[in-house]
C-alpha cells in the first residue's frame, strides 16, 4: 500500500485550484470531470512532483456533516492540514503580500516554527518549519 492522496474539502473547486496553484505554488496533476460539474482534481508540490497528491474535493457541498465539521474547525482556528516549508518567516511575508490572511503569525513552539492561514475555501492551513 502506498500513501498518495491527502484530501482537502473545499467549497469551490475552481477557486481552490487558483488559490493553491497561484498563491501557494502547487502544480495541477489530474483534472478529470465527474458528474454534476464536480472534478477529480489533484495537485502536487513543485519540489516533489512524484510525491503525494492533494485532492481538492467538494465534499462540504454534498455531505452536510463534512460542512459542519469544516465550519467547526474554522471557528476553532484549527488547521487540519499542514505543509512543510524551509522558511516560515519568508513564506509568511510572501503570502501576506499576496493578500493571504493569517490567524497565527510566525510562532515558535519547541523545535518547530509555524503559521496558520485561511485558504479562502473553508480551511485553516498550517505551515511548519523544523528548527
Amino acid at each position, binding site marked *: 500500500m502506498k500513501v498518495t492522496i491527502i484530501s482537502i474539502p473545499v467549497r469551490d473547486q475552481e477557486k481552490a485550484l487558483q488559490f493553491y496553484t497561484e498563491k501557494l505554488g502547487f502544480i495541477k496533476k489530474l483534472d478529470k470531470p465527474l458528474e454534476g460539474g464536480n472534478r477529480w482534481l489533484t495537485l502536487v508540490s513543485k519540489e516533489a512532483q512524484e510525491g503525494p497528491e492533494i485532492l481538492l474535493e467538494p465534499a462540504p457541498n454534498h455531505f452536510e456533516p463534512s460542512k459542519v465539521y469544516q465550519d467547526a474547525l474554522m471557528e476553532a*482556528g*484549527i*488547521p487540519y492540514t499542514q505543509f512543510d516549508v524551509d522558511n516560515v518567516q519568508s513564506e509568511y511575508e510572501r503570502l501576506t503580500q499576496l493578500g493571504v490572511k493569517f*490567524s*497565527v503569525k510566525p510562532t515558535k*513552539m*519547541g*523545535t518547530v516554527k509555524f503559521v496558520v492561514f485561511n485558504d479562502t475555501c473553508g480551511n*485553516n492551513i498550517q505551515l511548519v518549519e523544523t*528548527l
Partner: protein
Amino acid sequence: MTFYESEIKRIRGIIHSNQGQIDTIIGMRNYIDNNYDSHLNLEVLSHIQFVSKYHLLRLFKRYYGLTPRQYLINKRIEKSKEHLRNRTTVTETCFAVGFESLGSFSTLFKSKTGKSPIEFQKEQLSRSK
C-alpha cells in the same frame, strides 16, 4: 483568541518550557545537518554540546521523535538521492554522504526507499531523458 491558539499556549507552557534544553537540541540538529558527511557519533556530539551522551540521546528523541542516529541516516539517504540523480556513482555517493561501508549504505538505502541505489539511479536517469 481562538481555541487553537489557547491550546497551543497551554501545551507550550507544559512541554516546551525549558528553552535552554530546546536550544541545545536545535544546535545538535544543526550540527548534524552541517556535518552529516563526516564521522559523527554521540561521543562527538555530546562533547560539542557539553552534555552527557545518554541525556542528549533522550532529549533528541523527545524533541524530534527519532534518535540522532536515525536522524543522521535519514539525512544521509536524502543527500545520497541528490548525488545519485546527478550521476555520481554508487560508491562515490556512499562515501560522499559519510557512510563507511558500501554494504551498509546499500542495505539502508533499500530499506528506506524500497529500491537499491543503482535501481534508484537508473529510474531517475531514465525519467529525466
